C-alpha cells in the first residue's frame, strides 16, 4: 500500500472554491454528497470543495484536524482521509462501513496485539489504513469498487 499523507495531496490541489453544504443527510464513505455535509456538521468543521477531472474533493477542517472526502463525479464518497492531533470519529466517517471496519479491526488486534499505533485492513470492499501517535494521527479509507477508473490510489494519500 502506498499512502501518502493528505496534507501532501492538499498542496497539489490548492485550487479550491467555496461550496455551500447541503443539509446533512447521512454520513460518509459510500454515501452521497449530502453525507459530506453531515460529516462536516458532526465534525464541527468548515467545508471546502475541489473539483478535479476524475473526482471531487471535499475538505473538512476542524481545529487542527483535516478530513478529505473523495467523491465520484456522480457524487458518491469513495474515499476519506484524515490527519490531525486527534483521530476523527470514524463511526461518522465510515458510515455504513463502520461495522465491518470494527470487526476487522478487532480481528487485526487479536492477530497482532502489539500493533497499537497502526492498523491496515484490506478487504474486497473496504481498505483502511490508520496510524499515528501523540498529536499526530492520520489515515485513509476507501471502497475499491467505487474508485473511479483511472484514479491511482496513491494519489489519495
Amino acid at each position: 500500500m502506498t499512502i501518502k499523507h493528505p496534507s501532501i495531496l492538499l498542496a497539489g490541489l490548492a485550487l479550491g472554491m467555496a461550496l455551500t453544504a447541503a443539509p446533512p443527510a447521512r454520513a460518509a464513505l459510500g454515501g452521497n454528497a449530502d453525507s459530506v455535509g453531515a460529516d462536516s456538521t458532526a465534525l464541527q468543521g468548515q467545508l471546502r470543495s475541489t473539483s478535479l477531472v476524475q473526482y471531487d474533493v471535499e475538505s473538512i477542517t476542524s481545529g487542527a484536524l483535516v478530513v478529505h472526502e473523495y467523491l465520484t463525479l456522480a457524487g458518491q464518497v469513495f474515499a476519506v482521509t484524515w490527519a490531525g492531533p486527534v483521530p476523527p470519529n470514524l463511526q461518522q466517517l465510515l458510515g455504513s462501513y463502520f461495522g465491518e471496519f470494527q470487526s476487522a479491526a478487532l480481528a487485526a488486534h487479536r492477530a497482532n496485539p502489539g500493533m497499537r499505533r497502526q492498523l491496515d485492513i484490506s478487504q474486497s470492499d473496504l481498505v483502511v489504513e490508520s496510524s499515528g501517535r501523540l498529536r499526530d494521527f492520520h489515515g485513509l479509507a476507501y471502497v475499491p469498487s467505487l474508485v473511479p477508473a483511472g484514479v491511482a490510489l496513491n494519489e489519495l494519500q
Partner: protein
Amino acid sequence: MKHAYRWTAPLALSVLSACGGGSSHPGSTAPKAYTIGGSITGLTAAGLVLLDNGGDTTTVAANATSYTFPTALGTGIGYAVTIHTQPTGETCTITNGSGTVGSANVTNADVSCTASPTYTIGGSVSGLTASGLVLADGSDTASVAANATSYKLSTGLPSGTTYDVVVSAQPTGETCTVANATDTVGSANVTNANVSCTANTPPPVTYTIGGTIEGLTAAGLVLQDNGGDNYGATAGTAFSFTFATAVAGGGAYAVTVKTQPTGETCIVSDGSGSVASANVTSVIVSCSQYAANLGSNVVAVTVGNGPAAATSPVFNIPYVTVKVCEPSSPTTCAIINNVEVDTGSVGLRLLASALTAPDGGSPVSLTTINDPGTHANTIGECWRFGGGSGAWGPVATANVSLGSETASGVEVQVINDVMDGAPTGGCGTVQFGNVSDFDANGVLGVGVMQQDCGTGCTTVSAGDYYYTCTSSSPSSCTQVGMPVVNQVPNPVMGFAQDNNGIILQLPAIPDAGLPTANGYLVFGIGTAGGGNALTATTVLTADPNYTTFTTLYNGATLTAGNGTGGIIDSGSNALFFPNDNGPTTNVIDTSCIPGGAFYCPEPPISLTAQNENYDGSGTPSTVNFTIDSIADLSSDNYALDDVGGPTTGSFDWGLPFFYGRAVFVAIDGKSAGGTTGPYYAY
C-alpha cells in the same frame, strides 16, 4: 629305609640257605629269580608310577600296554604291586596285585586305567545388568551375558586341581568381584565361586555456571563464581559466558562482580542459587554507565515477556516498575510491575486492575479530579491509538515514584475504571481495557511533550479525547475542550529535579534476539549530579506541534508535519517505515504474516536512512539498519533487533533502534544538557 630293606632281605635269605640246607646242595648256584609285571590297559597319559613291596618302583610311559619291575624275586617271595602315582587325568587299578612268586615270572599283576572324573567350576552371578563380563581360570575363559544369574567355565577339572577364577574383563559401567575364587577341586562341581556385580559409582555430575552479559562496551570486567572462579570479559554485543569450573548438582553458585569495567557498572541478577540437574545459563550481567545510579535517578528496564496475565505476549516492549501512592494517604502505595516505557506518548496510564491488585504494596484508590469548567464533573479521557483504538477512563491524581524520583499529585489516567458515563464517540474502534490488550499493566509516556494532547484538545473538535462526565441522572459524558494545564502531563515534569527529560538505554543484542534484554531508564539530562550528561553525538530537534523530526528514506523526504516525519518511539515494537514511498521502488515482502504487518525479506536486507532536525537545519545523521524476516525470528525471544514493518508517511524508529544506544528525549521547552527540548538525541 627302602634301600636298607631292599638289600637286607636277600642277605637274610642267603644266610638261611647257608645254615639251612646249603650244605646238602654243595656247589649249587644262587636261587633263580622271577620278574614281577603285568598288562596295562587304557593308559593314555604319562605319570603312572607303580610300586612293588613298598620299595621297587617303575615309571610307566603313556600308552604302555605292559610293565615289569626292575627287581626280580625268588621263588616263594611275596610280591605286592600298588599304585604309587596315578597318571595325569586317569585312575588306574590293579588286579592280581599280590601273591607269592612261584617258578615263573609274574605277568598277571594287571593294571587297568580309565579317565578320571572332572568337575565344573562355576557359581552364581548377582547384580549383573550390563554386558562385557569375562571370567577366567587360567586360559579357560567364559563370557557372561547381561542379566545372567549364574556361570560355568567350559573346562572341567579333576579332583585335586587348584582353580582360581578371576575377572578378566569388567562389564560396562559395573564392577564384579568373585567370592571363593580359589580352592582345590573336590569330588563335586564347584558352584560357589560366586560373582557379585555393582554399578560403578558415577563420577560426580557437574554443571556449568553462566548466563548473558549485556551492555558491556568497556574493558576490565571480571566476574567471579563462589569466590574463586574468575571470568574475564571483553566488550561486545550481548553474549553468553560460562565459568571454567563446573559445580556439582545440588551445589551452590554465587556470581559476583570482582572487578568493574572502566567507566561502567555491571549488575548481576539471578546470580546465585542451587544447581539443579542442568547447566545454569540464567545469570544476567547488565552493564551500563548509568547502572551506578540505579535506584536514585535510574530504574531498571526489562524487555521480556511481560505480565503473566497477558494472553499473547508481544515482543519488544520495555517494562519498568512504578510505585503509585494515594496523595491523601501517602503511605498507601501499590507496586506495579510491567509498565511500558513509551517515548511516543505522554502521561502515566494505569489499568484499574493494576491498582486494585498490584504486584506489591497494597491496593490504592486514586481520587478523580474535577473538570475545571464545572468544578464538579469528573474528567474522562479517551486515549487514542493510531490504529483507531482507544482506552477509556477517568483522570485522577497520584504520587508517582520511580527510583528515588517522585512526582506528587500528578494527573494520571486510570484505564477501564468505573465511570459516570460513556464517551459519545465510543472511544475508538476497539476499546482497550485489560492486560492482554496492552501486554502491560500501564503505559509510562515520557515523550517530548509536556502534556498528552496539547492545543489540539483545548477546543471541542472532530476528535474525541477529553470528556466531562456527570453522575447526575442520567449519567453521561460529553466532549469538552481541556485547557493544556489540566491535561495529563508528562510525569517526569513533576519530579523535584531531573525533570527535563529521560534517557532510555538498551544493550546491543544479537541478530537472533534474546529472551530478555536489560536496560536503564534515566531521569534528567545533564542535571546536577545525575550522571546523565548529554553525551549523544546526534541531536534532532522536534517539531513542537507534531513531536517529529525529518527523516530521509528511499529517496523520499518525510518532513516533520501533520502525519509525516520521523520519531523515536519505544512504544512501537518494530521499525515502521514506508515500503514503497519514494522515487525508488524498493518493495519489501510482507507476505509471511497475515495482514502484512511486518517485513519478511529473505535474506535480511541492509538499509539506510537519515535523520535531521524538523526544520531541515543541521547535518543529517545517517542510520544503518537491518531488517530480517519476522518469520525467521524465534518466538522465544522477546527482544528482537531487526524487525520492521510498513507504515505510511512516517518513519517510526521503534524499539529496535534503542538496542545498543542511549536515546535522550528532552521535553518541550526544557533546557536539557545545554539544548532546549523538544529533541531526540542518540
